[in-house]
């Protein structure tokens, strides 16, 4: 099943790279959203193996279960999902605002501040 995740991650990173290289602000944001999905799935593969039907829960016996999914990467991803949401929301507000101020979706119209 790791091959499935590898294909999904590859597609997400590839698509995100293409989108963040665009001049349009909208596409840049879409790229960032895809990128955070890709990174989350990437972390998902980094733990103690990917498993089916074995969530990291301790049953009524109170014994630590064997052969369950890695809880640490899940905790990390949970944090990452929430933070990337906060980040996406902020970028969206920024795009909304810059569109209001500059009246353009083209990043080249916004590039004057960073030029040497």
């Amino acid at each position, binding site marked *: 099943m790791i091959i499935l*995740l590898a294909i999904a991650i*590859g597609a997400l990173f590839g*698509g995100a790279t293409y989108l963040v290289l665009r001049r349009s602000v909208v596409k840049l944001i879409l790229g960032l*959203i895809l990128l955070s999905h890709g990174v989350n799935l990437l972390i998902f593969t980094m733990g103690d193996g990917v*498993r089916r039907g074995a969530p990291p829960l301790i049953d009524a016996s109170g014994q630590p279960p064997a052969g369950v999914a890695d809880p640490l990467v899940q905790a990390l*991803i949970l944090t990452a999902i929430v933070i990337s*949401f906060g980040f996406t929301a902020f970028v969206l507000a*920024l795009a909304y605002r810059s569109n209001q101020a500059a009246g353009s979706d083209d990043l080249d119209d916004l590039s004057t501040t960073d030029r040497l």
Partner: protein
Amino acid sequence: MLYPLVLIALAAAPFALVARFAGRDRIAWGLALIPLAIFGLTLAQAGSVWEGGQVVERIAWVPALGLDLSFTLDGLSLLFALIITGIGTLIVGYAGHYLATDNGLGRFLAYMMLFMGAMLGLVLAGNVLTMFVFWELTSVTSYLLIGYKHDYADARRGALHSLLVTAGGGLALLVGLLLLGQAAGSYELSDILAAGDVLRAHALYPAAVVLILLGCFTKSAQIPFHFWLPGAMQAPTPASAFLHSATMVKAGVYLMARLSPALGGTALWDVTLAVVGGATMTFAAIVAMRQFDLKAMLAYTTISMLGALTMQIGLGGKYGAEGVATNILAHALYKSALFMLAGVIDHECGTRDLRRLGGLRAYMPRTMVITALALLSFGGIPVMFGFVAKELMLEAALETELGAMLSTLAVAAIAVTAGAYLITGWRLFSNTFLGQRSVAAMQQHITDPTPGMLIGPGVPAVLSLIIPLAFLGPISSLIGPASAAIYGKPLEVKLALWHGVNTALLVSLGAIAAGAVLARFGEQLANLRGWPAWMRGDMIFDRLIERTLTGATTLTRTIQEGRLRRYILLTALALLVFVGVPFVGFGISSIRFDLDPQLQFYEILAAALIPVGVIATINARTRLGAIIAVSVVGAMVALLFVLFSAPDLSLTQLLIEVLSTVFLLLVFSVLPVRFENFSAAWVRRRDAIIATAMGFLMGGLVLATATNDAFAPLAPFFLENSLEKGKGANVVNVILVDFRGFDTLGEITVLFIALLGIYGLLRLRQGKDNVAPERVTTTEPAAEPVDTKR
């Protein structure tokens, strides 16, 4: 009691600031008691060195690294420490007169004290790393001294050149010293000196020697790094006198002399030193002969003498060692006197241009006598100390073991240099004191300066005469241990004025005669055409700096050209090169394809919808299409989490996905309905290729790392302790709120800050002066619903 010597000088620096107040000449002589006290304290410890021993002290500095602050006083350190503090005493006193009208005298003397402390630390260091620290400190403090008159562009340029050249050499030196310490197994000088045979046979030896010599040659202004020294003449004369007669530039010579017992004796070391030193000596002597500025003249003769010292270390042997020690002392005496005298003349006449001076003999008789004494020693005229030193230099050249050719060349070079020195000395003297009184000099009332100002140059000049006549015995007992330290073996030194008629004396007399004859044509020689300006080292160096800056600017403009996608492009390319190339080379073979027998069709479906959603997002022509496509991707990611045992993730992902979609709908409502392609077709194709490569790289990395169990997972710890210590059965939740609770706190903080930012951005709309009015009106209707819904 060695490190207190260094500490006293460094600690005295703030006190020197009292010289800001009036009565500066007297305050300066009072401050001169500090170096004098250090001189006395050093001399008090001379007895144990003369009995053949060393004074060693060690303070633990960074014990964990085995780094000690260790100090050693042996013959060579003693000679240098006495010169530094002795000349330092005179110069501090002299500076009070020279800068009597300058409010900055306090600052100047504070720099001087710091510099003196650094220099003392350098020569007393018993550990190469300790020494390096002080070596760098001399570079920094001399930068402050040379740039003292920072109102002048030339002073800033001179200071910068000296700093860049000596600190650049310092970097090479540091690496060289580290290699040396690796090869010797210790950074203590005593261990390094004892490990000579091991070092010379070691594989690191050539690299260490080249790097150390680079440091020494830059510090001691050897060709081709000599150009910074004349530029450093922008320093006030007392600083020049101190830096270039006795201290700063001798640091390189000191280090070479110090290490020559360990590193010398090979062709690499001996021949390099002899050739570079000899070339520097001759070249600078000839350039000096043709100068018109008093200080420039002295600067080039200083370079020449540094070359002579380097050459003698290379020539080696008993006479080489004696010659180095004797010449260091002789040069320190006459050169400090000459620099201070140049300052006196400059101070009284307002110029130090030989073409504008002349006829001062009637007005400055005392100055003339002292100058004559110092110049006689400089020219190596018999009975002066400079003569004794020059004879030893000639003996070193005649007795060297480097072969007949180098020996002959060295003797010839010394003879040429001696002749050039005579011409230089004569030009300096005749143009200043003899002949007609110049127009420039007539406009002022010129007299000898106050006696206090003449003490500075007077003492070393008179010593240059008295030492060979009366004190060769005591001086021999100072030179002896110093020579022994350079030679590496015990040495019996008896300096003498008269060795009988020998080759050295004949060569010396021949050079004096030739110089005396040619001195009549000194001005014609000086007026011959020189080489073009672009060949001068300082010009070349200036252009080098300029090019470096231009190059850096061009590079920055290329990388940081103001467009986000360029930064991302470069980052992606860098990742592809630095991760992708090694991965294709080494990692790709570790990918294993294990076909999973339990693979379900709905798993394949969920995973396959992700690339489909990605492509649909990219190809979407309308904003609604893009939002739907990107939501499909998010939903499939949530589904994958469910399928692969992460229910918490799935719940969160779904919740966030819904929120994100709402947000996207809100914000995209103000954006254009249809997307247009801004980039040209070829740019899109290029980006597609890069993106595809990126996708394959990341997918490949996942396959390669996920099948790799090189690292033990942390999971068992959490699984075992979740219930017992965290009192929770859902391990993921326990990690979030308990084991890694601070992470969650940080996450909440990030969300809060994002919220504040969003709030601020959306509220800003109401600040009318922030936004161009016509834009506000065009977007107002579309923006309205966002506000109401929030």
